[in-house]
């Protein structure tokens, strides 16, 4: 039997349980025998390690090989127009490394060299302009950390608990520090005419994914980004240039951004009519639901990150975010939402960026129904899934920001459940 990556194995549990149980004496660990890892000389303490340049660009060490993006094959017809999920159950802090940040393509991740990159600004502007990549690098630059959440994140959970892991229920999210030029700067360079009320932004890939964005938002905080977490964007995130639309659904963050057209009206492209609209119980659908409401999830313990150490000190941790501003507070419930305690934010909430929260408890080893509930600076409180369903029905695909429950059992395993 081979170990299934990403999921705990029965053998793993037994091993962990034995180690934990054996060491547990009167609330503290007492060594029965000297630990050979200490008493015997280990090879790494005697011989050379790798020289510099063994990996000119480093990958995570082999022991972390299961901390990777994963997809759910049955969701889409193929992997070209498809999505995978960030391994949020295994990450900490708030920055998502680019190499494991989820991907969503509508026609595959294209190969577009910087030298061949062109950005056009046209439509209702005084001078339609073309920029090269080198041109973009000469505008004053800013740095901002933003989360990007796909509107369909947790979309499979509308009708009830389905996927057993935070990676799959909440992994269509990443959070990076972007460097780039405010879109406003580029629009001002072309000179927006007074009739201009919207922009239409479009990518260079074969899906030519295009979205309409109100001019106010474009001039407010949209960012034309070319670096993420300090280095060039990865191909799968739109190298060499993508758009950031802070707090708004990921589909609008056009990758391989090639054109910004100033218009009087929304274009009503396929991605803002057929898709990314939310059908309510009576059959009418909401459109232009751009903002991502406040949401949170406990990343550990969770189905892919069970408790392996038995009773005693336990770190409960997770992520919270809001498209309407900064996270102000996160509460955690151990009993399925009957009572709540306020968790500790690792850092003060930042606008439209992930917050990390911790609740450090002394676990008595009994079952828990773990939930987290985010609040943002506007006073919005993350609702339960049932509260959302009461308003929207069951047929929405997008914008499920309901409270997630993990049923943690006495043996430390966790399962995605819904509670009354």
């Amino acid at each position, binding site marked *: 039997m081979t170990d299934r990556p990403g999921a705990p194995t029965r053998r793993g549990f037994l091993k962990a349980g034995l180690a934990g149980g054996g060491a547990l004496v009167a609330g503290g660990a007492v060594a029965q025998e000297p630990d050979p890892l200490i008493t015997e000389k280990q090879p790494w303490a005697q011989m050379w390690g790798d020289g510099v340049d063994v990996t000119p660009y480093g990958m995570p060490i082999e022991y972390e090989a299961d901390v990777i993006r*994963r997809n*759910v094959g049955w969701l889409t*017809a193929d992997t*070209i*127009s498809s999505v995978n999920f960030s391994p949020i159950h295994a990450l900490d802090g708030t920055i998502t490394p680019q190499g494991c940040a989820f991907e969503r393509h509508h*026609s595959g991740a294209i190969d577009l060299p910087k030298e061949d990159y062109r950005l*056009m*600004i*046209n*439509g209702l502007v005084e*001078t*339609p*302009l*073309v*920029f*090269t990549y080198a041109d973009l690098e000469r*505008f004053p630059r800013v740095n901002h950390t933003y989360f990007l959440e796909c509107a369909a994140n947790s979309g499979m959970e509308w009708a*009830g608990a*389905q996927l*057993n892991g935070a990676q799959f229920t909440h992994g269509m999210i990443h959070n990076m520090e972007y460097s780039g030029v405010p879109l406003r700067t580029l629009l*001002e*360079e072309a*000179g927006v005419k007074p009739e201009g009320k919207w922009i239409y932004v*479009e990518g260079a890939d074969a899906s*030519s994914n295009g979205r309409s964005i109100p001019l106010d938002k474009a001039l407010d905080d949209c960012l034309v980004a070319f670096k993420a977490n300090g280095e060039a964007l990865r191909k799968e995130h739109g190298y060499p240039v993508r758009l950031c639309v802070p707090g708004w659904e990921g589909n609008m963050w056009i990758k391989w951004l*090639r054109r910004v057209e100033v218009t009087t*009206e929304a*274009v*009503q*492209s*396929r991605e803002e*009519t*057929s898709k990314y*609209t939310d*059908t309510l*119980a*009576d*059959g*009418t*659908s*909401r459109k232009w*639901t*751009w903002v991502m*409401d406040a949401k949170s999830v406990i990343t550990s313990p969770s189905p892919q990150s069970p408790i392996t150490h038995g009773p005693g000190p336990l770190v409960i941790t997770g992520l919270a975010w809001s498209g309407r501003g900064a996270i102000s507070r996160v509460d955690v419930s151990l*009993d*399925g939402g009957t*009572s709540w305690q306020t968790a500790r934010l690792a850092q003060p909430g930042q606008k439209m960026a992930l917050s990390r929260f911790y609740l450090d408890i002394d676990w008595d080893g009994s079952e828990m*129904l773990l939930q987290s*509930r985010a609040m943002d600076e506007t006073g*919005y*409180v993350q*609702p339960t899934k049932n*509260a959302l369903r009461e308003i929207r029905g*069951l*047929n929405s695909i997008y914008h499920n920001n309901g409270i997630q429950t993990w*049923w943690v059992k006495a043996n430390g395993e966790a399962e*995605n*459940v819904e*509670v*009354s």
Partner: protein
Amino acid sequence: MSKSRNLSAVALLLALTGPAQADRFGLGRPALPEEVAAWNVDVAPDGVGLPEGSGSVEDGEEIFSANCAICHGEFAEGVGNYPKLAGGDGTLDRDDPLKTVGSYWPYLSTVWDYVHRSMPFGAAQVLTVDEVYAITAYILYSNDLVDDDFVLSNENFLEVAMPNADGFIVDDRETTELPRFSQPPCMTDCKPEVKITMRAAVLDVTPDEGH
């Protein structure tokens, strides 16, 4: 001292005379008309951007069969997990609504624009303008929205009525949800009892190998 005061006076003057000018960097170059024409091909609901041309249901059937049917089916009914482009009439308020061009899409311009720019999947932007008119006509026909002798053109484009044109409202969360979800949250004794109502492990659709 006096020098820096002079400098800020100059800056103030510049700001007063033309802030828009002062904000420009003179980077990039004017886009040529041919360049704008090559990329600016999106079509708006009012027909702006629609090129002159026409195509019949009859021609569309053949072109669709050759270029699209392998994924979307001969009658636009869909194959496997590929999108269904026809059917679903009257299903939007039921469980698992079937959203297609006929049952869901509010604007015909979106069909023309999307097919023109993004399909066929894997070989986008190979169709001629007339072929796109013909395919669009055929998709309408597959949804029982036009007769088999219908010819679609830039002239009659706006006359086609889309069944779900009035089926959309602008995001109303601000009034329907925000007041309800902006109450101080309960902290203790929030519910009388808690029962597990559904388990993912019971409905286990989680990928086994995960990749």
